[in-house]
C-alpha cells in the first residue's frame, strides 16, 4: 500500500549513538536527562543568587537607620527587582518544568527522549543566555533596574524617571524576551512529547499527575509568553525608538513636558498580567503534580480522585487565562471589568479547593511514611492552604482596595508561589535524587532542612500578613515616615529578618547534602520507594536511552497502591495485567 510506504519512509530512523566526548555528552547534549540536570543546576545557581539578594534587603530593613542605610534607596530597589525577576523566571519557571519536567516527562510516559532533542538543547541555552543577560544588568552603567519584577511603565519606559533606569532596564527586557523564546521552544517540545510519544498503553488518563501538570503548564507557557514577548517588544520600542505605546501625552520629567503622546500605561499592565497570572500557575502546577505523586507513594494509596485532579489542573490552567485583571483592580481599569474579573477569580478557588480535598483524601486511611520527600510534600499542602486563603481576600475587588500593594500581597504570593513551589522542588529532589544520581540523599540532613525551612518560612510570612493589615506598603526601602516608625513595624521587620536568615541559611544544608550525596550517598536500587511509575522500572540513573532497549508497555493506572489481593503493596504501571486481581482493576 503506497500510503503506508510513504509514512514509513518518513519515520525512517536516524540512530543516535550516545556521544562519548565530554562536550557532547555533558555540555551540548541533546539527552533530555542531561538537559534536565542543566536546567536544575541553573536554578540552583539562580536560587543562591536570588536568596542572597533577599538577605541583603532583609538586613537593610532590620537595621534601618536613615543616617546609615545598609543599601541606598536605589540599590535597595535594584536588589529587590533582581530578586523577584531571578526567582520567578530563573528558578520557579525553570526548575520544576525545565528541570524535573525534562528529566522525568519522557521517562514517565515511556519515551526515549523529548520529541525535538535539539530544540530542547536550544531552549536550555537560550535560558542560560537570558539568565546571563539578566545578571549583566548589575554591571552596566546605572546598574540594575529599579522598577520591580513587574516593570510597569512609564517608570520602566523612560530612562530619566529615576536613577538606575538606563541599560539595566533594557537588559532586563531583553532577558525576558529571550526567556520567552526559550519557553516557547520548550513548551512546544513538552506538548508534542506528551501527545505523541507515549508508550504503548499509556493513555492520557494513565499518565502520572506530574505529566499532566507539565503538559498543562506547557500549554500555559505556549500561550502566555507570546503575549509577554509582544509587551516586552513594545517596551523596548518605547525605550529606544521613542515610540509611545505606554506613555500618554503630558508626562513631565525634569520639569519638562515629554514629547510622547497617545499611549497608555494600562496597556502594558494588561499585556503583562495576561502573561503574569498564567505564569504564577506555571510556577505552581508542576509542584502540584509532583506533590500528588509523592503523597500517593508515601501514603501507599491511589491518589484520591485522580480524574478530579486532572480536571482541576485543566480548569486552573483554563480559568487562569481570564483572571489577570485581579492584579489591576486599583489600576484605573474600568470598574465594571473589575467586577467580572473578581467573580472569575473566585471561581479559580474551586479547583484549588478540590486539589486540597483530594490531597487530604489521599492521606486518609493511608500508611504514611514521613521521610524528607514526604515532609516537603506535606509542607506544600499546608503552605498551599495558607497562601490560598489570602487569595480569597485579594480576589474580592472591594477588599483588595485595602490590601493591594501592601505586605499582605507579598505574604500571599510568597507563601503560595515562592515557598510552596520551592517545597515542591525540594520534595521532588529528595524523591528523584536516587533516580537521577543513583544515590540517596542524607535523610537526617533532609529532615533538619525541612524543619528549619518550614518553621522559618512561616515565621517570615505570617507576620507579613499582619504588616499588610497594618497598612505597610510594599517596595518601601525606608521607614522615615511617622506611621512606619511606630515601634511595631521595626520589631516586625527584625523578627522577619531573623526568620528569613534561618530559612535561607537552611538551604545551605540542602545544597551541601545535594553535592555530598552525589558522590558519597548510599547507592540506590532501581525502585527504592516502591513507586509505580515508569521511571522506577529502569536503572538508577537511567541509561542513555532510558529503558535499556526495552519498550515499556503500560497495563495499569498510575497509582495502584495497596490493591487488595495483589502480591505486593504496589503494582507497577508496566506489570502484566494479571498483577492486579480482576475485581480491583479499572474502577474509579
Amino acid at each position: 500500500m503506497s500510503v503506508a510506504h510513504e509514512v514509513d519512509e518518513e519515520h525512517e530512523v536516524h540512530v543516535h549513538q550516545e556521544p562519548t566526548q565530554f562536550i557532547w555528552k555533558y555540555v551540548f547534549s541533546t539527552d533530555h536527562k542531561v538537559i534536565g540536570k542543566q536546567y536544575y543546576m541553573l536554578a540552583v545557581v539562580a536560587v543562591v543568587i536570588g536568596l542572597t539578594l533577599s538577605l541583603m534587603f532583609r538586613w537593610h530593613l532590620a537595621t534601618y537607620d536613615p543616617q546609615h542605610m545598609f543599601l541606598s534607596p536605589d540599590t535597595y530597589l535594584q536588589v529587590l527587582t533582581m530578586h523577584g525577576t531571578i526567582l520567578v523566571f530563573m528558578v520557579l519557571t525553570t526548575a520544576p518544568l525545565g528541570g524535573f519536567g525534562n528529566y522525568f516527562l519522557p521517562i514517565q510516559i515511556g519515551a526515549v527522549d523529548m520529541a525535538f532533542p535539539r530544540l530542547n538543547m536550544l531552549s536550555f541555552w537560550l535560558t542560560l543566555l537570558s539568565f546571563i543577560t539578566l545578571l549583566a544588568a548589575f554591571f552596566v552603567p546605572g546598574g540594575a533596574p529599579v522598577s520591580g519584577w513587574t516593570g510597569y511603565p512609564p517608570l520602566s519606559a523612560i530612562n530619566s524617571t529615576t536613577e538606575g533606569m538606563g541599560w539595566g532596564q533594557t537588559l532586563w527586557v531583553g532577558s525576558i524576551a529571550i526567556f520567552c523564546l526559550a519557553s516557547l521552544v520548550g513548551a512546544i517540545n513538552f506538548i508534542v512529547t506528551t501527545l505523541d510519544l507515549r508508550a504503548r498503553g499509556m493513555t492520557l488518563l494513565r499518565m502520572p499527575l506530574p505529566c499532566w501538570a507539565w503538559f498543562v503548564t506547557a500549554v500555559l507557557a505556549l500561550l502566555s509568553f507570546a503575549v509577554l514577548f509582544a509587551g516586552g517588544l513594545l517596551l523596548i520600542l518605547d525605550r529606544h525608538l521613542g515610540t509611545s505605546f505606554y506613555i500618554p501625552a503630558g508626562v513631565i520629567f525634569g520639569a519638562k513636558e515629554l514629547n510622547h503622546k497617545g499611549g497608555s500605561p494600562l496597556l502594558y499592565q494588561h499585556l503583562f498580567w495576561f502573561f503574569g497570572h498564567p505564569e504564577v500557575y506555571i510556577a505552581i502546577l508542576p509542584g502540584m503534580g509532583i506533590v500528588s505523586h509523592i503523597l500517593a507513594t508515601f501514603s501507599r494509596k491511589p491518589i484520591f480522585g485522580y480524574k478530579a485532579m486532572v480536571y482541576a489542573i485543566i480548569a486552573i490552567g483554563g480559568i487562569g487565562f481570564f483572571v489577570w485583571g485581579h492584579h489591576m483592580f486599583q489600576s484605573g481599569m474600568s470598574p465594571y471589568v473589575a467586577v467580572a474579573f473578581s467573580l472569575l477569580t473566585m471561581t479559580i478557588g474551586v479547583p484549588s479547593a478540590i486539589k486540597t480535598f483530594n490531597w487530604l483524601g489521599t492521606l486518609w486511611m493511608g500508611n504514611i511514611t514521613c521521610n524528607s520527600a514526604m515532609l516537603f510534600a506535606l509542607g506544600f499542602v499546608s503552605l498551599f492552604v495558607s497562601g490560598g486563603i489570602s487569595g480569597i481576600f485579594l480576589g474580592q475587588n472591594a477588599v483588595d482596595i485595602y490590601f493591594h500593594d501592601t505586605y499582605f500581597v507579598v505574604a500571599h504570593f510568597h507563601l503560595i508561589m515562592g515557598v510552596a513551589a520551592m517545597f515542591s522542588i525540594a520534595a521532588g529532589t529528595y524523591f528523584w535524587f536516587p533516580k537521577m544520581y543513583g544515590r540517596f540523599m542524607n535523610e537526617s540532613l533532609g529532615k533538619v532542612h525541612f524543619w528549619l525551612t518550614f518553621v522559618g518560612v512561616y515565621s517570615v510570612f505570617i507576620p507579613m500578613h499582619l504588616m499588610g493589615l497594618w497598612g505597610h506598603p510594599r517596595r518601601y526601602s525606608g521607614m522615615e515616615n511617622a506611621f512606619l516608625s511606630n515601634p511595631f513595624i521595626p520589631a516586625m521587620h527584625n523578627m522577619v529578618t531573623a526568620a528569613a536568615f534561618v530559612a535561607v541559611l537552611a538551604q545551605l544544608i540542602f545544597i551541601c547534602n545535594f553535592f555530598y550525596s552525589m558522590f558519597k550517598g548510599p547507592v540506590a536500587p532501581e525502585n527504592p520507594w516502591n513507586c509505580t511509575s515508569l521511571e522506577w522500572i529502569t536503572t538508577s540513573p537511567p541509561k542513555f536511552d532510558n529503558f535499556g532497549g526495552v519498550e515499556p508497555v503500560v497495563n495499569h493506572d498510575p497509582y495502584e497502591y495497596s490493591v487488595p489481593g495483589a502480591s505486593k503493596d504496589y503494582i507497577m504501571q508496566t506489570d502484566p495485567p494479571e498483577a492486579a486481581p480482576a475485581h480491583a482493576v479499572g474502577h474509579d
Partner: protein
Amino acid sequence: MSEATIQPTEHAAAPAPAAGHGHAPAPTGDVWGGGVRPYGAHSKKFGMWLFIVSDSITFAALLFAYSFVRMANLEWPTPFHAASILKSTTMTFVLLSSSLTMVLAVDRANKKQRDKASFWIMMTALGGLAFVVLHSWEWIELIHEWVQPAKAANGGVLPMMWGTFFAATGMHMLHVTAGVFYLVGLALQYKGGKFKPIDVEVAGLYWHFVDLVWMFVFPLIYLMSTKIE
C-alpha cells in the same frame, strides 16, 4: 522491535510504528496502543502548528496594541499615498506568489522529486527576498520622507503612527527574513538528499503563516492609513 526504534531521534515518533502499519502488533482490548499520533499529524508538523498558535498570539497582541493606541488617538495620520500603496500592493503580490511556489514545492517533494522540490523552495525564498528588499527600500523612503521631518519637529520622538508601523511591519519582516534563511538552508540540503518531504511541508506551513500574517498587517496598517486626496 528493531534496535533502532528505541533510539532517540530527531524524528519525534521514532518508536512504535503506529497501529495500522501492518507490522506493529495490534493493540489489545481497550488498552490504547501507544505511539499513535493524535490528529494524524507528524510531530514536526504538530510542533510547527503550536509555534504558529503561539506566534499568532504575539502578532495578535501587537495588533491589539496598535488598535488600542489608534483608538485612543483621534487624529491618526494617514500618510500612505498612491506610490506607497502601489509598492505595498506589489509586495503583497510577491508574497502571495511565493506561497504558490511553496505549494508547488510541497507537491514535488511529496512526489519524491527532490530537484524540483528544491527548485521551488528556492523560488519561494527568492520571493521572500524580493519582499524584504522591496520592504526595506520602502522603509528607507518612508524614513526620509516622513519620519525624519517628524522627528526633527518633535524633539526626536517617533510619532505613534510610525511606532506601530515599524513595530508591526518590522516584526513581520523579521519573520520573512528568518524564513528566507530557513528555506535556502532547506533547499540546499534537500537537494543533497537530506530531510524528508515532511520537512518541506513543515517549512510550507511556516511560510503560509507568515503570508497570512501579512494579510492582516497590510490592511490594518497600510490600507487603513491611506491618504485620500
